[in-house]
């Protein structure tokens, strides 16, 4: 029998300082950047660059041989808590991506935030974020992952609310934080379930013990040794599913899945580079990363929940993205939608495909956000001295292709990747997901075709809203001069400088297929090779059917169909977008006057299925009603009780005062008086009269003699 303490026995490595460096450099950046003033961007960029180099070095060393480092942290009763690092291909890839995107965002921000007075604070927060993100990636202990998970939430909160002078920004930060908390509640519940069963949160230990656990009479049982003592953990089998779903709740919050996704569009109140880094490429992907880490611990039911939530999120968000006016809102809904794809992939067991999509999405979405950032930044310059307008509103854009050619190039490349057209990275990863999804739906059958249908519909929608955005922003006429009545504006609009264009172009280049392999078949990509789908470790009767068990032929048979269907759907979406939003088309012409979308569907889309108002009406109102009830209770019951108590106290005080005055004081006075009297009595003897004293002496002498003699 395995001893738990043997599994989590300390393991050291000479590379520990390198791993710690990955954590220490960003936190060092956080600690020092705030004092740098004008040099803050260069300083923090240099630190992140060196961090990227460390990550790259570690990647070259440990690419083929994962590294585990473990040490004892503290002991609570019998339970040994450990800290552990695990550097496998997934962790190394993630740390590279995080640092790479962070570095480019740093560079981009140098220009984007140039005029902001609180620039050092901004870069310090970026350092904090990178630190917490690296913690999630590197640690192999669910407790530590949870700690850094929360830290990521904090840094996200700080960055969304960076312009906290704006009411909407601070509200959005609060919203993001609170909704994340709801998800984290699930996360911590999952941790508790796992800890109760396995007495450890170390992922290695949890996995090893999960293999040994069995289902006996509907109970989830595991026997193991802990420090020489035998432990039999047993709980109802449903806890296994519940634990997985609870852990997934954490990902729902962090990765903005239905029903907690409403925070992400609001999070666009933060600076655009932050949106690129946190709310597109890395942090929201942390939920997917966490799902990948606990992938093998999820049973069939939990995975079904994951898949359904992912599909629903992907579809809903794609619908919502159709009719937004704000360019960042479109990108935000698109992000939610793509995250839905990843989660869906995890749910169907397409581990490699989901992570592949995570990587490709990180690059093309960051590129989209940075391009949008350039547009916003350049439009923002026009605002100077002129009339105020919203530089994020697509109604003021149009025809920017000629003014911002580099941005246009980057934006279009990234958009093609997002739409999933062949030759671009998004095609590979999305294709892989759709293929696995199709196989999964075939195996499951019945109602499980719905996620597949939703996913394929989302392909059309994605292509549509992507190209709607491109047409509105880059084609047609520049609408702003007409709105503001200033014909000179187009001449003032310039392309962004190298600080901003280079990062965007780099992301655009990474959105092609070639960084992931010169192929149109996702299976031939090195990413799919590197991140192989692992086997489920849960007891057999609870485990989902692994896609690894499906014969190769099934995939091959479906591959062509899926490929063709998805390409056709994407082209269809493109075509519809061209029809409705091409320059001079009906919708494009009326777009500028529109205040809100027409028709029921449009309304649903624009208000994102009214989810916000639903929450407002149900939860907020319920909470407010409860608050009012509590306030009423407070005011009329508690306050009255308190007042009554106070009055009672006053009465008692009066009584005690009277008692005090009459009895206690009387007693004291009596004592004092009697003492005084005795004093007077004795004092009268001490008259200072020697004769009297002699007299008294003799009285006593006489008495003494009389007593003795007689």
């Amino acid at each position, binding site marked *: 029998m395995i001893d738990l303490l043997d599994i989590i026995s300390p393991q050291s490595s000479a590379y520990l300082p390198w791993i710690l460096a990955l954590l220490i450099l960003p936190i060092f950046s956080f600690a020092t950047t705030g004092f740098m003033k004008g040099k803050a961007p260069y300083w923090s960029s240099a630190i992140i660059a060196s961090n990227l180099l460390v990550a790259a070095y570690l990647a070259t060393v440990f690419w083929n041989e994962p590294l585990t480092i473990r040490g004892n942290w503290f002991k609570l009763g019998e339970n040994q808590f450990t800290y552990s690092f695990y550097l496998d291909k997934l962790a190394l890839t993630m740390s590279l991506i995080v640092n790479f995107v962070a570095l480019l965002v740093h560079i981009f921000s140098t220009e984007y935030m140039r005029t902001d007075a609180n620039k050092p604070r901004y870069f310090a927060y970026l350092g904090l974020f990178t630190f917490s993100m690296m913690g999630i990636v590197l640690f192999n202990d669910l407790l530590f992952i949870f700690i850094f998970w929360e830290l990521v939430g904090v840094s996200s909160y700080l960055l969304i609310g960076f312009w906290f002078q704006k009411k909407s920004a601070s509200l959005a930060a609060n919203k993001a934080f609170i909704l994340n908390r709801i998800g984290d509640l699930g996360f911590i519940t999952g941790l508790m379930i796992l800890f109760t069963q396995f007495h450890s949160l170390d992922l290695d230990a949890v996995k090893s013990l999960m293999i040994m656990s069995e289902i006996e009479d509907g109970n989830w049982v595991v026997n193991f040794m802990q420090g020489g003592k035998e432990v039999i953990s047993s709980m109802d089998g449903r806890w296994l599913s519940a634990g997985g779903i609870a852990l997934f709740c954490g990902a729902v919050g962090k990765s903005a899945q239905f029903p907690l996704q409403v925070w992400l569009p609001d999070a666009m109140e933060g600076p655009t580079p932050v949106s690129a880094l946190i709310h597109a490429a890395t942090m929201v992907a942390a939920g997917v990363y966490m799902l990948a880490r606990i992938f093998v611990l999820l049973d069939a039911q939990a995975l079904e929940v994951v898949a359904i939530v992912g599909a629903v999120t992907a579809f809903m968000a794609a619908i919502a993205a159709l009719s937004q006016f704000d360019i960042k809102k479109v990108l935000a809904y698109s992000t939610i939608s793509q995250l839905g794809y990843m989660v869906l992939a995890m749910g169907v067991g397409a581990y490699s495909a989901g992570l592949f999509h995570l990587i490709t999405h990180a690059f093309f979405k960051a590129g989209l956000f940075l391009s949008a950032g350039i547009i916003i930044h350049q439009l923002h310059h026009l605002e100077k001295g002129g009339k105020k307008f919203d530089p994020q509103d697509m109604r003021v854009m149009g025809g920017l292709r000629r003014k911002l050619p580099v941005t246009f190039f980057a934006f279009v490349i990234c958009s093609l990747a997002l739409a999933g057209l062949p030759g671009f990275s998004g095609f590979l990863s999305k294709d892989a997901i759709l293929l696995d999804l199709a196989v999964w739906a075939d195996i499951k059958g019945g109602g499980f075709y719905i996620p597949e249908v939703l996913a394929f519909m989302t392909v059309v929608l994605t292509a549509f809203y992507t190209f709607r955005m491109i047409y509105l922003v880059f084609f047609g006429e520049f609408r702003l001069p007409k709105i503001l009545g200033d014909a000179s504006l187009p001449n003032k609009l310039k392309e962004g400088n190298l600080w901003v264009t280079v990062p965007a172009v780099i992301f655009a280049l990474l959105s092609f297929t070639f960084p992931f392999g010169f192929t149109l078949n996702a299976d031939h990509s090195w990413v799919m090779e590197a991140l192989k789908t692992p086997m489920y470790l849960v007891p057999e009767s609870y485990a989902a059917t692994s896609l690894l068990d499906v014969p190769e032929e099934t995939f091959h048979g479906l591959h062509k169909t899926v490929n063709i269907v998805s390409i056709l759907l994407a082209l269809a979406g493109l075509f519809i977008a061209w029809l409705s939003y091409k320059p001079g088309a009906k919708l494009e012409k009326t777009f500028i006057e529109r205040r809100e979308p027409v028709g029921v569907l449009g309304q649903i889309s624009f208000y994102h299925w009214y989810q916000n108002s639903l929450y407002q009406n149900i939860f907020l109102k319920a909470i407010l009603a409860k608050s009012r009830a509590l306030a009423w209770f407070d005011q009329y019951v508690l306050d009255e009780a308190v007042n009554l108590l106070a009055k009672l106290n006053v009465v008692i005080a009066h009584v005690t005062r009277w008692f005090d005055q009459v009895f206690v004081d009387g007693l004291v006075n009596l004592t004092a008086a009697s003492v005084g009297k005795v004093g007077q009595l*004795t004092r009268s003897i001490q*008259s*200072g*009269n020697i*004769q009297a004293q*002699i007299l008294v002496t003799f009285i006593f002498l006489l008495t003494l003699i009389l007593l003795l003699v007689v």
Partner: protein
Amino acid sequence: MLLLGALMFCVGLFVVFTRKNAIMVLIGIELMLNSANLNLVTFSRFDPQALQGQIFSLFVITIAAAEAAVALAIVVKVYKYFKTSDLDKINSMKG
């Protein structure tokens, strides 16, 4: 004889107790000392060789003289200070 000594002592004591004037108190004290002398000399009759009683009474007389001298000096001083020689008015030791 002893009775006379006892009488003298008791009268001296009485005077010491009752008189307010410091000099009268001194007189009382002299009386008491003298009564002691009387007793000493009386018993000394039964010890003609050693004469302890007589010698002792000699010493007592000497001490009485010294005491009187010092006491009177003090009385004069006190009178100068308090402007009275009444003992009941000199009560700075009163508690």
